Every structure is written in C-alpha cells, then in structure tokens.
C-alpha cells in the first residue's frame, strides 16, 4: 500500500510515525523482506559527515555610521567576497588567511562564528557619495549579524572515487595523505548510510526537500555543481560511479560546530566537514527496495592520484563492503584502506534526525520541483588567448 508525504506528515503530527535509520532499515529488510519492511516503516533517515570544499556562508553585517560600501573584506584576515551590495558578503570554506596560511581559512571563520567567538571584520572601500567611508575595522559575532546562512553549492556527493598513489613519493591531497607505491587507499562516503545511495533516482529528494544541515533544518536549494546524472551512473537501480550532488541552504544561527567542523588538509588547504541528514519516506515497495541497498551492492573506483591529470587512471572497481573491510587487493597486494568521512558522526546524525521526526519536531517536505534527469560534467575548454 502506497503512502503519501501528507499521510506520513500526519502520522508525525500524531506521534504515530515509524522511523528507522538506513542501517536499521536494511537489517529489517534482511529479516522480514522488502514488502513487510515497506509496510512497517514510514521514514528512513540517511546521513553523511564529510569534508565538502564547496561550502560557505552569506553574511550581512548591517551599516556603520557613516556607512561604507565594502569592496574588499577580510574576516580574521581571510578574504571574503566584496562584489555584492554594501554590507553583504560570501565567505568560502577554502579561502586561506593572508597571515596564517594553510592552518586557517574560511572554514575556520565559519566554525569560530558558530562557536560564538568574536571575529575581526576589516573592510576597505573607494568611497562614494552615498557611502563615504573608506575603511573600517571592528569585531562581529554570529548574534550581531542580520543574516548568516550557509549556502553550499556542492555537497552530498552521491558517490566518490577512492584514492591511491602509484608514485614514489608521499602525496598530500584532499583525499588525505596517500603513501607511495599504492601504500594505502582512502575513500570518502558513508556508503549505505549516505543519502543519495538510498534514493538514486531522486523520487523523494528534489528542490525544497527539508534536510538536517549542521544542526539546523535546511533545504535542498538546487542541483549541486558538477551534478552528473545519466545511464552510466546508475545501473539496475544502483549507483556505480560518482554522480549527482546537491546545493543546500540553512540558517547558521541554528547550527552547531558539533555538526559543522573546520578542517585543514596538509599542503592542500582548508575545507569544511558538513553534517547532513536526509529523511526518505518509504512511499511504497519500490522505494523500500532502493533503501535496502547494502555496501556489497554499491561500488566506486580506485583512482590513481599520482597522475596529475583531469582524467586519472582507474585501477579497479571496488565495493564499499571491501573498502570497509580494512584492506583491498590491488596489483596482487593487500593494501590497507582508510575512511575520510566519519561514519560515527553520520550515525549520530541519522539517530538524531530519527528522534526529531519521532518527536514531531521535523516534518517531511515534498520536493516542489524535481532535479534534472540528465546531468553532464563538461571539462573546461581552454581557448587560445588572442
């Protein structure tokens, strides 16, 4: 029997909803079968806690007296965008401090704001008739800001490559430290708990879907940048390779550094760990079979990051079950694997979202518009400079 978003929401309101995490749901399917699990469960919670570089926040400072049209802006010496209206800015997670290099960047500014710390705001302007002031240095806190919302153009990767390094030297990458001669393999998704492995065809996730974002209730705003959707990504209803992404939005004032954490990768730079949870309604048996997917069914590819090209060689295909086992076979050797995405944190989020829904504090939002059914990730064409 099919259920609608509305029916599930009234159950949430009446305190009758049955919610389980994605991992619990898969176990249930193995015990009782898909059709029984589809009957018993209304909502399944999925989650991820991973470094996501394409993250940042829009901030509005309010006006000083006399006012300034800020055209160059720094927050704790990290440059923020000055090309918006007078006192609006966007601070990106990977922007580095001009004084502290790799160890401090936009991600750390965001975390400092979330932690209630005072952040130095410095701005310059060329001065106009309406905004005469040319410079300002002051301090701000999250509470002082008129608006502060995270808007991450690319989060929640459907799937991502695993990385290794065939060269003779150690590499420091956004996929962590890669030992020489394929000495390790790193991977970066929460596998079967990760949102877009559980709704690979976007039946329930689209523009307007309400999500858990960094502790707040946020939304899917758009398709993510570098969104890939086509026949090759999904075969037999299962995600095979890197695929879709989501752009997400949420109010920073309701977030916490328990679920948003600044990070810095050696010789790479700063990035933001973003905690995201997405509830998926068990609309019918078809939806339940998508949600039943296990780590042994989902694959990614081990890619050689030792080759510094856009298309890096793929060494082999590998299941998440094998990656999670602690080692994989590569060129006849047993190579240790390590995650970069925190499964423990993702589980914490999935459990928390489950209890929010059970307590009637989080309702489902049906997408107001579907995401594109086709998505291609085109390379940058370099045109000769005339």
């Amino acid at each position, binding site marked *: 029997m099919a259920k609608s978003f509305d029916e599930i929401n009234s159950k949430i309101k009446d305190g009758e909803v049955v919610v389980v995490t994605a991992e619990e749901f898969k176990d249930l399917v193995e015990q009782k079968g898909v059709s029984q699990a589809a009957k018993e469960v209304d909502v399944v919670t999925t989650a991820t806690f991973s*470094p996501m570089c394409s993250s940042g926040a829009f901030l509005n400072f309010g006006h000083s007296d006399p006012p300034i049209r800020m055209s160059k802006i720094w927050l704790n010496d990290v440059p923020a965008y000055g090309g918006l209206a007078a006192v609006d800015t966007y601070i990106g997670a990977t922007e580095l401090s001009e004084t502290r290099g790799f160890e401090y960047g936009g991600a750390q500014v965001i975390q400092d704001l979330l932690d209630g710390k005072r952040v130095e705001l410095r701005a310059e302007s060329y001065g106009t008739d309406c905004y005469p002031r040319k410079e300002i240095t002051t301090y701000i806190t999250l509470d002082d800001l008129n608006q502060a919302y995270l808007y991450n153009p690319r989060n929640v990767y459907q799937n991502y490559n695993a990385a290794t390094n065939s060269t003779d030297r150690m590499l420091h990458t956004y996929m962590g*430290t890669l030992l020489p001669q394929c000495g390790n393999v790193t991977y970066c998704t929460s596998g079967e708990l990760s949102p877009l492995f559980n709704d690979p065809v976007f039946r329930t996730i689209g523009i307007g879907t309400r999500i858990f974002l960094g502790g707040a209730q946020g939304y899917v705003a758009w398709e993510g940048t570098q969104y890939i959707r086509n026949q090759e990504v999904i075969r037999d209803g299962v995600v095979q390779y890197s695929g879709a992404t989501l752009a997400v939005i949420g109010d920073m004032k309701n977030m916490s550094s328990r679920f948003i954490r600044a990070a810095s990768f050696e010789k790479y730079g700063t990035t933001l*760990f973003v905690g995201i949870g997405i509830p998926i309604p068990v609309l019918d048996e078809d939806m339940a079979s998508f949600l039943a997917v296990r780590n042994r069914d989902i694959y990614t590819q081990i890619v050689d990051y030792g080759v510094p090209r856009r298309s890096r060689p793929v060494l082999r295909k590998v299941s998440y079950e094998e990656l999670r086992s602690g080692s994989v076979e590569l060129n006849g050797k047993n190579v240790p694997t390590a995650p970069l995405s925190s499964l423990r944190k993702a*589980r914490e989020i999935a459990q928390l979202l489950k209890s929010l829904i059970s307590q009637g504090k989080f309702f489902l939002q049906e997408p107001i518009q579907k995401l594109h059914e086709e998505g291609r990730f085109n390379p940058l064409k370099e045109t000769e400079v005339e």
Partner: protein
Amino acid sequence: MQKVKVFMYFPPEKTDKPITYRLVKDYGLMFNILQAQIQPNKKGRLMAELEGTAENIEKGLQYLEEQGVEYRIFNKNIIWHEEKCVHCGACTAVCPSRALNMNGDEWTLTFDHSQCLMCELCVKACPLNAMDVNIFI
C-alpha cells in the same frame, strides 16, 4: 613502574648476543619490541618499550652502555586530543604500526600508545589538528 621507549643501535658483532634476554632476566624489565632491524653481521636497530621500576630501567640502560650498545630515549610522545576528533579515520591511513585504528563496528578511533613509533605522520594527516607531538625533558 615506569615505561620508556628506546631506540637501540647494536654494533655488528653484538647482534647475536642475547642482550635483550639479559634485560628481561637480570633486570626484570618488560620488553615490548615495536620495530626491529637485526641481521647477522650488520648494524642492528631495535625500537622497544621497556617497563619496570625506575631503578631497574636505569640499571638496564647502564648495562646496554657497558655492552657497547648505543641507545636513545624518546623524549616526546603523541597526544590525541579526543575532544577535537571527529573519528573520520584519515590518520589511520598513514599509521604504520596500527597504533591508530578504527575500532570494529563502532567506527571509533582508538589510540594504543604502546604501539606508537613516533613517526609523526598522523600529526600532519589529521585534518582536525587533533594529533600533536608533546616534547618533555
């Protein structure tokens, strides 16, 4: 009881001698080998953790010196700031001794100090700055 980590360098002619055995037998030291590179007739290298009373450790080290074994005591250790850790696992990718390990089904980081080789690879590999070197005198 105290614990110290020592690097020992054996001259080629000494590697056959049961020096480590004497440390255990005569000085009652617990001897935990962390890394060893010993081949007959070559200079050998051994990294071990010694555990015993302060007095016996001192005597044991004196014995090493008498036997012509050079040694170096570690004056640093690695600290894991658990409150900063998000249990991502990035540090386990580089840890050569598995001192850092993701514990089974919980996917929670565990740190076994006694297995640590002080290579400091995890300090750079941790994106959260949760691993640190602590130097003491």
